[in-house]
């Protein structure tokens, strides 16, 4: 079994992963020990920098008694000599039991799955899919809110280019969440994705004003607005400022509204917000460990 795109999974399959992830939490926290994956080797191929994803996979594998090998930048590996991804994958396939791949090219994980006999887990392929992030986002909402169905989820930031947001939106719609997309018109969710989301669930709301919709939010999912998307730096400052989450912005929100962010953040959320009960982004980052433990356990056959 490969984990390439969230679209390859049914709601039941995702729920199964989330249920197992829940059982993994004490092991992920180090309160319990496990030897579930003792003797197994994870090949961790990171062609692009990543902190959270790489460390949490490494942590997940180690907590389950397995070992990780690989690289976190292609420099110094045969990749730098011009080896194709297909060849690297065929070689690593022989050295390990599961491959985790982060690559700048879209579709790289699908290609890896094609050439590998061992399971491949997509840890992000360029602007493409990042299914384990989607699963940990779903896990975080469910853990806090008990259910995803009927939750009013407001997604704010770069909804045009941030394609991990697209797979999250599709998954949330599949789980019956009510979605609101907040972005400046130039960064609003593309029509084709909006159609996908509409086909899966309720009709989402579209807005360019966070103030107008934040009061009804159960979940506020903040994403980074990338400076390089704006030809004019002044325009970037204006837009980034409009969506900045600070205590003033949180004045009239629901008491149990939760704020999520895939991190790293660069000014989208003021540090003073970290101390409020709304801030759940560090819990979210931790949740990457139990969710990835569940996936590793499932693809390696240690768990059913």
């Amino acid at each position: 079994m490969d984990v390439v795109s969230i679209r390859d999974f049914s709601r039941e399959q995702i729920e199964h992963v989330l249920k197992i992830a829940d059982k993994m939490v004490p092991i992920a926290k180090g309160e319990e020990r496990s030897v579930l994956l003792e003797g197994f080797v994870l090949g961790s191929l990171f062609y692009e920098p990543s902190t959270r994803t790489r460390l949490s996979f490494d942590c997940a594998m180690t907590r389950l008694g397995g070992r990780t090998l690989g690289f976190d930048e292609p420099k110094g590996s045969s990749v730098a000599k011009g080896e194709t991804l297909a060849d690297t994958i065929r070689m690593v396939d022989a050295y390990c039991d599961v491959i985790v791949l982060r690559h700048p090219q879209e579709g790289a994980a699908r290609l890896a799955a094609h050439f590998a006999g061992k399971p491949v887990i997509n840890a992000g392929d360029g602007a493409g899919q990042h299914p384990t992030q989607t699963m940990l986002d779903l896990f975080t909402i469910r853990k806090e809110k008990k259910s995803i169905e009927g939750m009013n989820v407001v997604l704010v930031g770069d909804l045009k280019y941030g394609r991990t947001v697209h797979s999250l939106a599709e998954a949330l719609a599949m789980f019956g969440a009510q979605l609101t997309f907040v972005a400046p018109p130039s960064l609003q969710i593309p029509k084709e994705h909006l159609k996908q989301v509409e086909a899966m669930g309720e009709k989402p709301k579209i807005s360019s004003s966070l103030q107008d919709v934040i009061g009804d939010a159960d979940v506020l999912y903040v994403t980074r607005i990338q400076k390089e998307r704006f030809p004019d730096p002044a325009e970037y400052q204006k837009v980034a400022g409009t969506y900045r989450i600070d205590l003033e912005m949180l004045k009239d929100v629901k008491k149990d509204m939760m704020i999520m962010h895939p991190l790293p953040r660069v000014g989208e959320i003021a540090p003073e917000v970290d101390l409020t009960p709304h801030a759940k982004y560090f819990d979210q980052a931790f949740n990457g460990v139990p969710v990835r433990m569940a996936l590793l356990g499932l693809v390696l056959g240690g768990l059913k």
Partner: protein
Amino acid sequence: MKEFKVTPIRNGTVIDHIAVGMALKVLKIIGVKDDVNSTVSVLIHVPSKKAGWKDIVKIEDRELDPKELDKIALISPNATINIIRDYNVAEKFVVEVPNVIKGIMKCPNPGCITNKDEPVEAEFVVESKKPITLRCIYCDRIATDIAEGLR
């Protein structure tokens, strides 16, 4: 009397009912540039009972291979292929859009792994045949300008 703008051919292929304006793309597909052994006649903007206007391409002494037919189907799904042997229509059929497109066009997404130096052929799932909508099985990008991506 019916007026023939181009005379009948003895042996070869007549591609009829090409979507109007697509004849030059059909020529690109069948690679007339590289193969100067036969006459190729092109009719552009021909009145058609079915579709108002159409294009026609006649290739003498040559029959098309399945890959060429698949490509023609992608840019002109209603095109008819008439195989002519000794002035008679030996076979006549409408091109058919296959369910999977492999190795005949490249992914329109420059960031797609299939556009790098990897040993794979771009592959698409046909999500809809009318209008033709293709999705790259690697990067999920929807291809719209199909004529542009054909190899």
